[in-house]
Protein backbone atom coordinates (compact mmCIF):
# COMPACT_ATOMS: atom_id res chain seq x y z
CA UNK A 1 0.00 0.00 0.00
CA UNK A 2 1.37 3.31 -1.02
CA UNK A 3 0.69 6.45 0.91
CA UNK A 4 -1.39 9.00 -0.96
CA UNK A 5 -1.78 11.70 1.64
CA UNK A 6 1.27 13.52 2.89
CA UNK A 7 1.99 16.25 5.36
CA UNK A 8 2.96 18.96 2.92
CA UNK A 9 2.35 22.58 2.11
CA UNK A 10 -1.18 23.04 0.80
CA UNK A 11 -2.55 19.80 2.29
CA UNK A 12 -6.12 20.27 3.53
CA UNK A 13 -6.63 18.81 6.98
CA UNK A 14 -9.63 18.15 9.20
CA UNK A 15 -9.11 19.38 12.74
CA UNK A 16 -10.29 16.72 15.16
CA UNK A 17 -9.63 18.25 18.55
CA UNK A 18 -9.86 21.58 20.33
CA UNK A 19 -12.08 24.59 19.75
CA UNK A 20 -11.83 24.25 15.96
CA UNK A 21 -12.91 20.62 15.98
CA UNK A 22 -14.61 19.58 12.76
CA UNK A 23 -13.27 22.47 10.70
CA UNK A 24 -11.06 22.28 7.62
CA UNK A 25 -7.68 24.00 7.52
CA UNK A 26 -4.66 24.11 5.22
CA UNK A 27 -1.09 23.30 6.15
CA UNK A 28 0.89 26.44 5.34
CA UNK A 29 4.23 25.27 6.64
CA UNK A 30 5.71 22.48 8.69
CA UNK A 31 7.24 23.70 11.93
CA UNK A 32 8.85 20.55 13.31
CA UNK A 33 8.15 16.85 13.55
CA UNK A 34 5.10 17.37 15.72
CA UNK A 35 3.48 20.60 14.54
CA UNK A 36 2.47 22.46 11.44
CA UNK A 37 1.33 25.99 10.79
CA UNK A 38 -2.28 25.77 9.65
CA UNK A 39 -4.65 28.39 8.35
CA UNK A 40 -8.34 28.23 7.50
CA UNK A 41 -9.66 31.66 6.58
CA UNK A 42 -12.65 30.17 4.75
CA UNK A 43 -13.67 27.99 7.67
CA UNK A 44 -12.95 30.31 10.58
CA UNK A 45 -9.63 28.84 11.67
CA UNK A 46 -7.09 31.46 12.73
CA UNK A 47 -3.55 30.86 11.51
CA UNK A 48 -1.76 28.99 14.27
CA UNK A 49 0.50 26.04 14.94
CA UNK A 50 -1.31 22.74 15.35
CA UNK A 51 -0.08 19.37 16.52
CA UNK A 52 -0.24 16.60 13.92
CA UNK A 53 -2.16 14.53 16.45
CA UNK A 54 -4.96 17.08 16.29
CA UNK A 55 -5.53 16.85 12.54
CA UNK A 56 -6.51 14.29 9.96
CA UNK A 57 -5.09 14.54 6.46
CA UNK A 58 -7.65 14.67 3.67
CA UNK A 59 -7.35 13.80 -0.01
CA UNK A 60 -7.43 17.45 -0.97
CA UNK A 61 -4.45 19.65 -1.65
CA UNK A 62 -4.38 23.24 -2.80
CA UNK A 63 -1.63 25.05 -4.61
CA UNK A 64 -0.11 27.74 -2.37
CA UNK A 65 3.37 29.20 -2.47
CA UNK A 66 5.81 29.06 0.41
CA UNK A 67 5.16 31.77 3.00
CA UNK A 68 1.65 32.22 1.65
CA UNK A 69 -0.35 34.79 3.52
CA UNK A 70 -3.88 34.30 4.72
CA UNK A 71 -5.34 36.13 1.73
CA UNK A 72 -3.48 33.84 -0.67
CA UNK A 73 -4.70 30.78 1.23
CA UNK A 74 -8.23 32.08 1.12
CA UNK A 75 -8.07 32.63 -2.61
CA UNK A 76 -6.55 29.23 -3.38
CA UNK A 77 -9.02 27.45 -1.09
CA UNK A 78 -11.94 29.13 -2.80
CA UNK A 79 -10.67 28.54 -6.33
CA UNK A 80 -10.14 24.85 -5.67
CA UNK A 81 -13.70 24.68 -4.27
CA UNK A 82 -12.52 22.63 -1.31
CA UNK A 83 -15.63 23.32 0.74
CA UNK A 84 -17.86 22.01 -2.05
CA UNK A 85 -15.71 18.95 -2.68
CA UNK A 86 -15.52 18.22 1.03
CA UNK A 87 -19.30 18.37 1.40
CA UNK A 88 -19.57 15.84 -1.43
CA UNK A 89 -17.05 13.43 0.09
CA UNK A 90 -18.14 10.24 1.83
CA UNK A 91 -16.16 11.30 4.88
CA UNK A 92 -18.11 14.54 5.35
CA UNK A 93 -21.38 12.74 4.72
CA UNK A 94 -20.51 10.19 7.36
CA UNK A 95 -19.80 12.94 9.90
CA UNK A 96 -23.03 14.70 8.99
CA UNK A 97 -24.97 11.47 9.40
CA UNK A 98 -23.39 10.82 12.77
CA UNK A 99 -24.36 14.29 13.95
CA UNK A 100 -27.87 13.91 12.61
CA UNK A 101 -28.28 10.59 14.37
CA UNK A 102 -27.08 12.07 17.64
CA UNK A 103 -29.59 14.91 17.43
CA UNK A 104 -32.62 12.66 16.83
CA UNK A 105 -35.39 12.56 19.37
CA UNK A 106 -36.80 9.35 20.79
CA UNK A 107 -39.65 9.29 18.28
CA UNK A 108 -37.36 10.00 15.33
CA UNK A 109 -35.05 7.20 16.46
CA UNK A 110 -38.07 4.90 16.47
CA UNK A 111 -38.98 5.95 12.92
CA UNK A 112 -35.42 5.25 11.79
CA UNK A 113 -35.61 1.81 13.37
CA UNK A 114 -38.91 0.98 11.69
CA UNK A 115 -37.61 2.10 8.30
CA UNK A 116 -34.39 0.13 8.77
CA UNK A 117 -36.36 -3.03 9.44
CA UNK A 118 -38.52 -2.32 6.42
CA UNK A 119 -35.48 -1.90 4.19
CA UNK A 120 -33.95 -5.10 5.54
CA UNK A 121 -37.08 -7.03 4.65
CA UNK A 122 -37.09 -5.70 1.08
CA UNK A 123 -33.41 -6.46 0.60
CA UNK A 124 -33.82 -9.94 2.01
CA UNK A 125 -36.80 -10.78 -0.18
CA UNK A 126 -34.98 -9.64 -3.33
CA UNK A 127 -31.89 -11.56 -2.32
CA UNK A 128 -33.73 -14.83 -1.77
CA UNK A 129 -35.56 -14.35 -5.06
CA UNK A 130 -32.31 -13.82 -6.94
CA UNK A 131 -30.67 -16.74 -5.17
CA UNK A 132 -33.48 -19.07 -6.14
CA UNK A 133 -33.30 -17.86 -9.73
CA UNK A 134 -29.56 -18.46 -9.86
CA UNK A 135 -29.93 -21.93 -8.34
CA UNK A 136 -32.59 -22.86 -10.86
CA UNK A 137 -30.42 -21.71 -13.75
CA UNK A 138 -27.46 -23.68 -12.38
CA UNK A 139 -29.50 -26.83 -11.99
CA UNK A 140 -30.93 -26.45 -15.49
CA UNK A 141 -27.40 -26.05 -16.90
CA UNK A 142 -26.19 -29.12 -15.00
CA UNK A 143 -29.02 -31.34 -16.23
CA UNK A 144 -28.24 -30.49 -19.83
Amino acid at each position, binding site marked *: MVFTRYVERGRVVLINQGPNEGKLAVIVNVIDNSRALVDGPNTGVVRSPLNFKHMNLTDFKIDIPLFARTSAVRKAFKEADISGKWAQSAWAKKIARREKRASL*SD*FERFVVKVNRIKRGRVVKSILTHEKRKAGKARRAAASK
Partner: protein
Amino acid sequence: MPRVTNPILPGGIERYGRSVQDKRRRRWKVKKTTVKPAKVQKPKTKQVPVGGEKNGGKRVVPVHHSPRFVSVDQPKRPIGYKVGRKNRPAKIRQSLTPGTVVIMVAGPFRGKRVVMLKALPSGLLLVSGPMSINGVPLRRVNPAFVIATSTKVDLTGLEVPECVNDEMFKRNVKGKAKKPEFFGDKKNKYGERQIKLPQERVEAQKVVDRFLVTKVKQTPLLKRYLGAKFTLEKNLFPHAIKF
Protein backbone atom coordinates in the same frame (compact mmCIF):
# COMPACT_ATOMS: atom_id res chain seq x y z
CA MET B 1 -27.08 48.35 38.30
CA PRO B 2 -24.80 47.96 35.26
CA ARG B 3 -24.70 44.47 33.87
CA VAL B 4 -21.26 42.99 34.35
CA THR B 5 -20.30 40.11 32.15
CA ASN B 6 -18.56 37.10 33.60
CA PRO B 7 -17.59 34.72 30.79
CA ILE B 8 -17.15 31.05 31.48
CA LEU B 9 -13.65 29.82 30.69
CA PRO B 10 -12.98 26.43 29.10
CA GLY B 11 -13.24 23.96 31.91
CA GLY B 12 -16.39 25.49 33.29
CA ILE B 13 -14.76 28.04 35.60
CA GLU B 14 -16.00 31.59 35.68
CA ARG B 15 -13.53 34.28 34.62
CA TYR B 16 -13.98 36.45 37.73
CA GLY B 17 -14.31 35.27 41.29
CA ARG B 18 -16.88 36.50 43.75
CA SER B 19 -14.77 39.25 45.32
CA VAL B 20 -13.60 40.57 41.93
CA GLN B 21 -17.16 40.52 40.66
CA ASP B 22 -18.24 42.58 43.69
CA LYS B 23 -15.51 45.10 42.97
CA ARG B 24 -16.53 45.37 39.33
CA ARG B 25 -20.15 45.88 40.21
CA ARG B 26 -19.22 48.88 42.43
CA ARG B 27 -22.21 48.36 44.59
CA TRP B 28 -20.94 50.66 47.31
CA LYS B 29 -21.34 53.60 44.91
CA VAL B 30 -25.08 53.14 44.81
CA LYS B 31 -26.83 54.55 47.82
CA LYS B 32 -29.66 52.56 49.21
CA THR B 33 -32.85 54.55 49.25
CA THR B 34 -35.49 52.40 50.77
CA VAL B 35 -38.43 54.09 52.44
CA LYS B 36 -39.58 52.24 55.50
CA PRO B 37 -43.29 52.34 56.20
CA ALA B 38 -44.07 54.43 59.29
CA LYS B 39 -44.76 52.24 62.29
CA VAL B 40 -48.22 52.53 63.69
CA GLN B 41 -48.09 52.31 67.41
CA LYS B 42 -50.75 50.11 68.82
CA PRO B 43 -52.10 51.02 72.24
CA LYS B 44 -50.72 48.78 74.94
CA THR B 45 -53.47 49.47 77.39
CA LYS B 46 -57.19 49.88 77.27
CA GLN B 47 -59.91 51.12 79.55
CA VAL B 48 -62.49 48.71 80.85
CA PRO B 49 -65.58 49.46 82.95
CA VAL B 50 -65.42 48.15 86.45
CA GLY B 51 -68.39 47.37 88.65
CA GLY B 52 -68.68 48.35 92.30
CA GLU B 53 -69.26 51.83 93.70
CA LYS B 54 -65.83 52.41 95.23
CA ASN B 55 -63.86 51.28 92.21
CA GLY B 56 -64.08 54.49 90.19
CA GLY B 57 -66.09 53.01 87.33
CA LYS B 58 -63.22 52.26 85.00
CA ARG B 59 -59.72 50.93 85.02
CA VAL B 60 -56.72 50.88 82.67
CA VAL B 61 -55.58 47.33 81.88
CA PRO B 62 -53.03 45.97 79.43
CA VAL B 63 -54.38 44.75 76.10
CA HIS B 64 -52.42 41.53 76.22
CA HIS B 65 -52.15 39.53 79.38
CA SER B 66 -49.23 37.28 79.88
CA PRO B 67 -50.49 33.76 80.48
CA ARG B 68 -51.06 32.77 84.09
CA PHE B 69 -49.69 29.30 83.61
CA VAL B 70 -46.99 28.11 81.27
CA SER B 71 -47.29 24.48 80.46
CA VAL B 72 -44.11 22.51 80.90
CA ASP B 73 -45.18 19.99 78.32
CA GLN B 74 -45.10 22.01 75.15
CA PRO B 75 -47.06 20.41 72.37
CA LYS B 76 -44.70 19.20 69.68
CA ARG B 77 -45.01 20.60 66.22
CA PRO B 78 -45.04 17.98 63.57
CA ILE B 79 -41.69 17.67 61.80
CA GLY B 80 -41.54 19.63 58.59
CA TYR B 81 -44.64 21.55 59.50
CA LYS B 82 -45.00 24.78 57.61
CA VAL B 83 -47.84 27.25 57.47
CA GLY B 84 -49.66 27.38 54.17
CA ARG B 85 -47.88 24.35 52.83
CA LYS B 86 -50.98 22.86 51.32
CA ASN B 87 -51.68 25.91 49.23
CA ARG B 88 -48.36 25.90 47.45
CA PRO B 89 -48.84 24.57 43.93
CA ALA B 90 -46.42 21.86 42.87
CA LYS B 91 -43.69 22.82 40.47
CA ILE B 92 -43.43 20.64 37.40
CA ARG B 93 -40.32 20.77 35.27
CA GLN B 94 -40.48 22.75 32.06
CA SER B 95 -40.16 19.78 29.74
CA LEU B 96 -43.45 18.41 31.01
CA THR B 97 -46.32 20.22 29.34
CA PRO B 98 -49.78 18.93 28.43
CA GLY B 99 -49.44 16.74 25.36
CA THR B 100 -45.87 15.63 26.02
CA VAL B 101 -45.15 12.00 25.31
CA VAL B 102 -43.40 10.62 28.37
CA ILE B 103 -41.61 7.36 29.05
CA MET B 104 -42.54 5.66 32.31
CA VAL B 105 -39.50 4.29 34.11
CA ALA B 106 -41.07 2.63 37.12
CA GLY B 107 -44.17 0.73 38.11
CA PRO B 108 -46.19 -1.86 36.26
CA PHE B 109 -46.13 0.22 33.09
CA ARG B 110 -42.40 0.82 32.99
CA GLY B 111 -41.05 1.33 29.50
CA LYS B 112 -44.39 2.44 28.13
CA ARG B 113 -44.69 5.63 26.19
CA VAL B 114 -47.75 7.55 27.26
CA VAL B 115 -49.30 10.96 26.75
CA MET B 116 -49.30 13.47 29.58
CA LEU B 117 -52.65 15.24 29.85
CA LYS B 118 -51.97 17.70 32.65
CA ALA B 119 -50.36 18.25 36.02
CA LEU B 120 -52.72 17.73 38.93
CA PRO B 121 -52.71 20.00 42.01
CA SER B 122 -51.10 17.19 44.00
CA GLY B 123 -47.98 17.49 41.84
CA LEU B 124 -48.63 14.23 40.04
CA LEU B 125 -49.11 13.96 36.31
CA LEU B 126 -52.32 12.79 34.72
CA VAL B 127 -51.46 10.45 31.86
CA SER B 128 -53.28 8.21 29.44
CA GLY B 129 -51.73 5.63 27.14
CA PRO B 130 -54.18 5.99 25.41
CA MET B 131 -55.55 2.75 26.75
CA SER B 132 -56.68 1.43 23.38
CA ILE B 133 -53.13 1.76 22.01
CA ASN B 134 -50.88 0.53 24.78
CA GLY B 135 -53.14 -0.47 27.65
CA VAL B 136 -52.22 2.37 30.02
CA PRO B 137 -55.41 3.81 31.52
CA LEU B 138 -56.04 7.26 32.94
CA ARG B 139 -53.50 7.27 35.69
CA ARG B 140 -51.54 9.46 38.04
CA VAL B 141 -47.74 9.23 37.90
CA ASN B 142 -44.97 10.84 39.87
CA PRO B 143 -43.00 13.12 37.51
CA ALA B 144 -39.79 11.84 39.07
CA PHE B 145 -40.42 8.45 37.50
CA VAL B 146 -40.96 9.75 34.03
CA ILE B 147 -38.68 10.76 31.14
CA ALA B 148 -40.07 13.64 29.12
CA THR B 149 -39.53 13.34 25.37
CA SER B 150 -39.57 16.19 22.89
CA THR B 151 -42.50 14.61 21.05
CA LYS B 152 -45.82 16.32 21.64
CA VAL B 153 -49.43 15.53 20.85
CA ASP B 154 -51.59 18.58 20.20
CA LEU B 155 -54.22 18.64 22.94
CA THR B 156 -56.08 21.80 21.92
CA GLY B 157 -59.76 21.10 22.09
CA LEU B 158 -59.48 18.27 24.62
CA GLU B 159 -61.67 18.72 27.64
CA VAL B 160 -60.74 16.29 30.36
CA PRO B 161 -63.95 15.55 32.29
CA GLU B 162 -64.33 17.38 35.60
CA CYS B 163 -64.56 14.14 37.54
CA VAL B 164 -60.94 13.30 36.69
CA ASN B 165 -59.08 14.77 39.66
CA ASP B 166 -56.91 13.68 42.53
CA GLU B 167 -59.99 12.63 44.48
CA MET B 168 -61.04 10.13 41.83
CA PHE B 169 -57.77 8.22 42.02
CA LYS B 170 -57.79 7.81 45.79
CA ARG B 171 -58.31 4.24 46.84
CA ASN B 172 -61.26 3.47 49.03
CA VAL B 173 -59.34 1.47 51.57
CA LYS B 174 -62.09 1.43 54.20
CA GLY B 175 -64.73 0.19 51.84
CA LYS B 176 -62.40 -2.50 50.59
CA ALA B 177 -61.95 -3.93 54.09
CA LYS B 178 -65.63 -3.79 54.95
CA LYS B 179 -67.17 -5.46 51.99
CA PRO B 180 -64.81 -7.52 49.91
CA GLU B 181 -67.76 -8.83 47.96
CA PHE B 182 -67.86 -5.42 46.29
CA PHE B 183 -65.27 -6.71 43.87
CA GLY B 184 -67.04 -10.01 43.68
CA ASP B 185 -65.60 -13.29 42.55
CA LYS B 186 -65.87 -12.28 38.96
CA LYS B 187 -62.67 -13.09 37.14
CA ASN B 188 -61.55 -11.99 33.76
CA LYS B 189 -60.16 -14.27 31.08
CA TYR B 190 -56.69 -14.07 32.60
CA GLY B 191 -58.00 -15.38 35.93
CA GLU B 192 -57.46 -12.03 37.67
CA ARG B 193 -60.03 -10.56 39.96
CA GLN B 194 -62.00 -8.06 38.00
CA ILE B 195 -62.42 -4.69 39.61
CA LYS B 196 -65.48 -2.79 38.61
CA LEU B 197 -64.61 0.82 37.96
CA PRO B 198 -67.10 3.61 38.49
CA GLN B 199 -69.05 4.39 35.37
CA GLU B 200 -67.84 8.00 35.22
CA ARG B 201 -64.24 6.84 35.13
CA VAL B 202 -64.97 4.47 32.27
CA GLU B 203 -66.71 7.27 30.42
CA ALA B 204 -63.83 9.69 31.03
CA GLN B 205 -61.41 7.12 29.66
CA LYS B 206 -63.51 6.77 26.53
CA VAL B 207 -63.68 10.53 25.96
CA VAL B 208 -59.94 11.01 26.39
CA ASP B 209 -59.04 7.97 24.30
CA ARG B 210 -61.25 8.95 21.42
CA PHE B 211 -59.62 12.37 21.26
CA LEU B 212 -56.06 11.10 21.64
CA VAL B 213 -56.37 8.33 19.06
CA THR B 214 -57.65 10.71 16.37
CA LYS B 215 -54.80 13.11 17.11
CA VAL B 216 -52.17 10.38 17.22
CA LYS B 217 -53.28 8.99 13.87
CA GLN B 218 -52.49 12.30 12.21
CA THR B 219 -48.76 11.71 12.59
CA PRO B 220 -47.49 8.69 10.69
CA LEU B 221 -46.01 5.94 12.87
CA LEU B 222 -46.86 7.78 16.10
CA LYS B 223 -49.48 5.16 16.98
CA ARG B 224 -46.93 2.41 16.55
CA TYR B 225 -44.44 4.44 18.58
CA LEU B 226 -46.84 4.73 21.51
CA GLY B 227 -47.57 1.03 21.28
CA ALA B 228 -43.88 0.13 21.51
CA LYS B 229 -41.90 -0.02 24.72
CA PHE B 230 -38.77 2.01 25.23
CA THR B 231 -35.57 0.04 25.51
CA LEU B 232 -31.92 0.82 25.40
CA GLU B 233 -30.22 -0.64 22.35
CA LYS B 234 -26.74 -1.10 21.01
CA ASN B 235 -24.81 2.19 21.02
CA LEU B 236 -27.62 3.95 22.85
CA PHE B 237 -26.35 5.54 26.03
CA PRO B 238 -28.97 7.13 28.27
CA HIS B 239 -26.74 10.02 29.30
CA ALA B 240 -25.81 10.89 25.71
CA ILE B 241 -29.10 10.57 23.85
CA LYS B 242 -31.73 13.19 23.32
CA PHE B 243 -35.27 12.28 24.22
